[in-house]
């Protein structure tokens, strides 16, 4: 029998209540990631990427958030059947989250060595000395020079790129099955970004870790992912293998995004912009959420919401006119 996927999520829904209004931030998301695979979750600001990540991690235990899910499995184990206690034990050891903002994710009053070492002491029961040695090893692995000298330094003594690498070190320290990286490089320069992406990719190759990489950068997704899922207004509107999806998008939103990015090699005179703006999550239009901005929208689109359907092997799209799009691309 084949190995179960590392992560399997079916029909995740998250609704916030704010000022007496319901904000359905995530509206039925499915995610599957296999061992050693990187799935990039793409989408613009407010489309629900971070909320999805936090819900998967079980970090949305707050009074104004309602989280529902039909299936949630980590390496075949049912997360929904577990107690909060059991889930907490998985967090930090078998699935970890790299937050976007490295400074706020680290404790400013504890040394780096203390913070990494704690993982080994709490989850692996190592002694202080062993934990320290492993922490130094981890810091060198993520490219912190003279790690043995810097281990007692505090977060503010490191640059932004180094702090991000320290977070990555903490996320991989216990060799988790799944790493969720929420925009791990957005705040970094391209030269440092390239180092971090290379690092995450090396861990995936060497340790077989599954990676959920959240980004809004189509370039970043193209560089490191195997599969891509594109979110729009709280739903996944298209997913598929990265090269295929970029070459022959099956959803007009993906197509428009790809057309709107300037090309480094061949500057054209005018970019193909997508008209309008993404919908307010509290009032998404009926029918297809993208319809008000879609070139291909028909009568049907404004009344009936398209379901996410298989449009090829391993490819899914939620659009009434995907087939015409793909046929058009072939012709």
């Amino acid at each position, binding site marked *: 029998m084949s190995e179960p996927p590392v992560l399997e999520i079916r029909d995740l829904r998250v609704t916030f209540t704010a000022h007496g209004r319901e904000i359905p931030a995530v509206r039925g998301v499915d995610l599957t990631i296999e061992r050693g695979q990187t799935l990039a979750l793409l989408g*613009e*600001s407010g489309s629900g990427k971070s909320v999805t990540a936090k819900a998967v991690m079980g970090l949305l235990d707050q009074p104004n958030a309602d989280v529902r899910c039909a299936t949630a499995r980590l390496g075949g184990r049912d997360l929904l059947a577990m107690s909060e206690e059991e889930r907490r034990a998985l967090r930090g050891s078998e699935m970890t989250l790299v937050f976007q903002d490295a400074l706020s994710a680290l404790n400013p009053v504890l040394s780096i060595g203390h913070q990494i070492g704690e993982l080994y002491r709490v989850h692996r029961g190592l002694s202080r000395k062993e934990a320290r040695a492993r922490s130094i090893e981890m810091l060198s692995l993520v490219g912190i*020079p003279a790690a043995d000298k810097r281990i007692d330094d505090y977060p503010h003594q490191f*640059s*932004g*790129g*180094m702090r991000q690498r320290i977070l990555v070190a903490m996320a991989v320290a216990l060799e988790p099955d799944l790493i969720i990286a929420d925009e791990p490089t957005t*705040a*970094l*320069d*391209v*030269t*440092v*970004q*390239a*180092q971090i*992406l*290379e690092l995450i990719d090396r861990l995936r190759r060497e340790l077989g870790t599954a990676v959920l990489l959240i980004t*809004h*950068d*189509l*370039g*970043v*997704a*193209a*560089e490191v992912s195997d599969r891509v899922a594109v979110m729009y207004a709280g739903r996944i509107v298209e997913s598929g293998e*990265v*090269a295929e999806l*970029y070459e022959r998008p099956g959803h007009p*939103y993906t197509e*428009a*995004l*790809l057309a*709107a*990015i*300037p*090309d*480094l090699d061949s*500057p*054209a*005179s*005018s*970019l*193909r*912009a*997508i*008209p309008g*703006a*993404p919908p307010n999550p509290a009032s998404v239009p009926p029918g297809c959420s993208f319809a008000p*901005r879609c070139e291909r929208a028909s009568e049907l689109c404004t009344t009936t919401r398209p379901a996410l359907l298989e449009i090829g092997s391993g490819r899914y799209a939620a659009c009434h006119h995907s087939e015409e799009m793909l046929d058009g691309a072939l012709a």
Partner: protein
Amino acid sequence: MAPSPDPVLRASGLHKTYRGGMLSRGGAVRAVAGVDLELRAGETLGIVGESGCGKSTLARMLVGLERPDQGEVTFRGRPFFTRGGVPRDIRRRVQMVFQDPLTSLNPRMTVHDIVAEPLRVHRLSPNARAMRERVGELLTLVGLSPDRMGRFPYEFSGGQRQRIGIARALATEPDVIVCDEPVSALDMSVQAQVVNLFAELQRELGVALVFIAHDLAVVRHVSHRVGVMYLGRLAELGPAAEVYGAPAHPYTMALLSAAPVPKPGLRGRSRIMLAGDPPSPVAPPPGCRFHTRCWKATDRCGEVEPALEAVGEHFAACHYATR
């Protein structure tokens, strides 16, 4: 309109050092350390560089919001920084668009009042009615409907807010607009709308633009010439096609090769991976500022600072610039 060769704006020997800032921990941050450049009428000069290399500091000096410690900025040959401050007519002719469209617009002012503010300050409208008409014109120019001028900024999307900021910058009919990361805070689907708007405005109004961004592809797309900054100085400066097509400075080469490209097919390409992080601007390395990360560095690089010198059609600050 083809860019004409006379400079509208010229910066020479600009230096700006911040003392005792939060980040400097007692030292002085050398934010801009010797920048010379010219902006020609009707052209777009793109500026790229890593976070913290001094782009915003440079931008503020180019519009006269900040006074350089050393060096000078001139507008059509006239100095910015006179004893009485920046002359009013120069301030009118040189405008700025900021990165974050929400925080740079006063939330308690209507769109009409925001766009009208420079008209009022520079007394450009004889009466309220003329002012209203002019605001309507400006909003139309940036693709917003004039009937929304009674609304507040929060009622607009990010891309629309940036258009409001651009309308305000255009109100005084400037010759120069300095745009500090004007599209970085925008959603990817909206970014192209604003980039196209700048190109259109330049074609129609002939305004010269300084366009600062960290996205290399966006800068290439909009710029006639591009300057690459590293730690407070220009590493390379020249026509966009040259800087991108035939970079002469090792740092430009590394930046171009590290930029992620949205083409999965190109993934295996060879890359220049730079070692380490950018050094702190509190203590920039001696000699060439890039030598701590440069794979071409020799002993000389750690001792002698290279000047920005002509390499073919463009300029590079490297002892071993690729010719």
